[in-house]
């Protein structure tokens, strides 16, 4: 086995992220590739956290769709995830507190860890530390190098001092030794190159890209999943010579960034959908006063406050429609973590060359999941293009006109502090010099030409941007279309399809505005069958594509339940579509069970769980009838009825 996925499940506050991090860094330092995704909730303590860490000898581009090892930190986690563990896999848990009560697939190793016994010698330990024991056991099961983990733990707890390090090492060791005696390794065949690769999130890549591009001003208001950019920036501001300003709201955030951009400093800000909504008015201002600014919009589950810790690609309409009137804006959707770095650098250059707002649209998945990158993908030496910047002006070439009408639409830009180029940048309409034409000097001719001057810049910018290209066989029977963060997972789905004998290729979009309509149309016309895959409920990109090209995709695969796509889900739906059976919106048995769990959690007691499920017909719509049974005894306690079409939960009938 040259690829393995480990799942760690527990509650917020259980500190499982630290455990996962140690595991991931160990693998990374051994030269393996790592991709991790943490599915968490908008709660500080409690609830359910589901962290998946995927290790591979080769590059892995999603958290995948398999589960080989599970570390369960509470009973609920065993029930939810143990059944997913693949044959040959293993389930680890603290046997002092938990037991394996869930149905397992064939030859899945059950590994109860007697934490109390194993840690007795350490006296009272914090609950978090049991994770370290499990980690130790896992190292053995996965044939990973304990010494490397030791070094990782040493670095991780460096600031906590020698004792803490010692204790953690000992705990891991205890788990390792316990496993060696009693458990069978999963049979991983690694060849450790020990090439060290940074383990990076998209938000870290954005921040590093900004630093490399010479960003000197970052303003923000905390908002998941953009906050980690603020945290990184704040932590590194002093060393990087960046002013990091947390503001009172997003209105201040974006207007400050625009002010800084006007004054000549490379400025960036980031937020999520709700904060971006508040920024829209000012984005139009940046377009009007032709101030460069970079805005990162990290999408999360919407609408409104929505599901703040879940991922979605639902804000495309918003960035396209941000602010009133027509003005030029550039919208870029980075396609993976590496690309977050590249796109940030690109964004700053485009913003200054064309003197306009550039929006980087990411999502929770891309911004928050960490993965290993090739070391050279994060580099200090990047191109820095500031466009037509006036360093000095002597009357010779006439008076300076900030908004001079040029055939490119780009006017030489002078910064405050420069003599002879004094001007006012107004959000009111103005002439070449910046004099208002919104009041006494209203002038239809000047208005028409300056409006055209601004819009012209987009056509020019488009030439700077690489056109979309097909990946995979040109004569494929199906073309998978996507945008932004889904590039990797669609790639994997494509490989699965190819493996199962379906010739598929991929057309993925990074540059959303301006749009390569001609090039895209050319590719699309040649496509036999197109399926647009995106993480929202209405197919926003498919709509955008049609708006820009007139081309209508044949089918769409949409996901909007908060969880990211997995390769197999895509591959299966593609097959279904090709077999002429597109997915129905009915509630599946698995979903009915989920809905039953929800009712149990909100209305009944924790020691119940869903049992048998069967379809019956009810009044109005077909019904899933779900037995509710006792967790341990499995004894039936009552019945729940869930609508197959609507998903409605009908009356709960307890047994008398």
């Amino acid at each position, binding site marked *: 086995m040259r690829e393995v996925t480990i799942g760690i499940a527990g509650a917020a506050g259980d500190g499982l992220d630290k455990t996962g991090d140690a595991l991931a860094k160990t693998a990374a330092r051994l030269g393996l590739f790592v991709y991790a995704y943490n599915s968490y909730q908008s709660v500080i303590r409690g609830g359910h956290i589901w962290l998946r860490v995927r290790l591979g000898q080769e590059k892995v581009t999603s958290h995948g769709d398999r589960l080989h090892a599970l570390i369960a930190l509470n009973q609920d986690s065993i029930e939810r995830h143990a059944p997913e563990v693949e044959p040959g896999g293993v389930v680890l848990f603290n046997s002092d507190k938990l037991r394996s009560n869930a149905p397992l697939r064939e030859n899945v190793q059950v590994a109860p860890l007697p934490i109390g016994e194993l840690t007795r010698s350490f006296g009272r330990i914090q609950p978090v530390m049991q994770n370290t024991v499990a980690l130790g056991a896992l190292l053995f099961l996965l044939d990973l190098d304990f010494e490397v983990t030791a070094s990782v733990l040493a670095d991780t707890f460096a600031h906590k001092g020698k004792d803490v390090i010692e204790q953690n090492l000992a705990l891991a060791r205890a788990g390792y030794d316990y496993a060696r005696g009693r458990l069978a390794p999963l049979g991983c065949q690694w060849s450790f190159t020990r090439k060290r690769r940074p383990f990076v999130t998209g938000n870290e890549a954005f921040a*590093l890209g900004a630093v490399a591009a010479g960003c000197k*001003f970052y303003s923000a208001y905390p908002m998941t999943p953009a906050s980690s950019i603020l945290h990184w920036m704040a932590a590194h501001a002093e060393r990087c010579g960046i002013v990091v300003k947390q503001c009172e709201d997003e209105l201040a955030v974006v*207007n400050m960034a625009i*002010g*800084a951009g*006007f004054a*000549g400093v490379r400025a960036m800000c980031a937020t999520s959908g709700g904060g971006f909504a508040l920024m829209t008015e000012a984005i139009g201002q940046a377009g009007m006063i032709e101030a460069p600014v970079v805005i990162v919009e990290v999408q999360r589950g919407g609408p409104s406050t929505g599901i703040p810790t879940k991922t979605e690609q639902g804000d495309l309409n918003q960035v396209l429609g941000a602010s009133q009137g027509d003005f030029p804006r550039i919208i870029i959707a980075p396609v993976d973590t590496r690309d977050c770095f590249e796109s940030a650098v690109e964004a700053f250059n485009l913003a200054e060359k064309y003197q306009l707002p550039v929006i980087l649209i990411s999502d929770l998945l891309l911004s928050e999941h960490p993965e290993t990158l090739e070391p050279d993908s994060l580099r200090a030496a990047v191109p820095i293009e500031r466009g037509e910047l006036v360093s000095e002006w002597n009357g010779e070439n006439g008076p300076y006109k900030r908004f001079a009408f040029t055939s490119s639409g780009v006017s030489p830009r002078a910064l405050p502090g*420069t*003599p002879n180029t004094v001007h*006012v940048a107004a959000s009111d309409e103005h002439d070449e010099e910046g004099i208002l034409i919104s009041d006494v000097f209203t002038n239809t001719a000047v208005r028409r030409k300056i409006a055209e001057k601004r819009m012209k810049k987009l056509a020019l910018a488009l030439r700077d941007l690489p056109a979309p290209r097909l990946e995979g066989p040109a004569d494929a029977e199906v073309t998978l279309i996507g945008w932004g963060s889904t590039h990797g997972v669609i790639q994997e789905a494509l490989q699965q399809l190819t493996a199962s004998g379906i010739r598929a290729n991929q057309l993925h979009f990074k540059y959303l505005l301006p749009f390569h309509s001609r090039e895209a149309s050319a590719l699309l016309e040649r496509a036999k069958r197109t399926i647009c895959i995106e993480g929202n409920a209405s197919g926003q990109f498919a709509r955008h594509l049609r708006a820009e090209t007139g081309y209508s995709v044949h089918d769409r695969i949409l996901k909007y339940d908060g969880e990211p796509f997995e390769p197999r889900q895509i591959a299966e739906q593609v097959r279904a579509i090709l077999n002429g059976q597109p997915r129905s919106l009915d509630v599946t048995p698995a979903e009915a069970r989920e809905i039953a769990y929800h009712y149990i959690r909100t209305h009944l007691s924790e020691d119940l769980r869903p049992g048998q499920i069967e379809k019956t017909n009810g009044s109005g719509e077909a019904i899933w009838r779900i037995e509710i049974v006792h967790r341990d005894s499995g004894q039936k306690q009552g019945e729940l009825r869930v609508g197959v079409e609507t998903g409605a939960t009908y009356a709960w009938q307890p047994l008398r």
Partner: protein
Amino acid sequence: MATIVELPIETYAGPVEPDWCPGCGDFGVLKAVKMAAGKVGVAPEDLVVVSGIGCSSNLPGFIHAYGVHSLHGRAVAVASGIKLANTALTVVITGGDGDGYGIGIGHFIHAMRRNLDLTYVVMNNQIYGLTTGQASPTTMKEMRTKSTPRGNVELPINPIALALVSGATYVARGFSGEPTHMADLIAGGMRHKGFALIDVFSPCVTYNHLNTYPWFKKRVYKLEEEPDYNPTDVRSALEKSFEWGDRIPIGLFYQDEQPTYEDSEPAFRRGPLVRQPLPVDPTLFKSLVEELL
């Protein structure tokens, strides 16, 4: 510190004539801002005048200086960004009561507690002028406007008191009828290290027929002329800020030396941001990446 060379008011003569109504109080403010700039001797290219939207906010278009005529209510935020990007600039904000105390009040209060080195001149005509005469946050109770035909029922904002309890370190009030006095207050604010508020009675001759020149002339008196008024005592400043009737004080209510936001910002040790080289130091960058290994 270099000795200051005062500059004549013509230095700041704008490109076009103001389009304010004849008699508008804002003419006086425009003059005072120019005089103040001359007093502190800031060159036009080192002065940035930032405004929002409103009659008053048209001011940057009428003075020879860099400027941003930004969005309604956002001037303070835009100005903060400019100042932080280039601390070598003198940044003055000019706007209206609706712009600053209505839609913009959040930025106003938070800028004061930050004590950024900005000078904020509010042309307070107690009305929404440009939108043709609705009630503003400083419109007096009972006053009839287009939006309050039965008389305004909301308590007016007290900008002086708000500034005092929000940490502004220079709090003053001027009157368009007294441009030279106002110019001194504005110049004082520009010299002051930290956030300076100069609230100005700037009558709207077209839409505010209550708070007129005569109305103010009858009432205003100068704090400087009060025998024992002490502008370093925040409590007596607060006392005075509540005075609103037959006598209304103008002048400097309060001044205090406090560290500015800029003082506390390590990034400025290397000088203004705008003068820093863009490319990142490779060794620094390497260390940033190493944290991720």
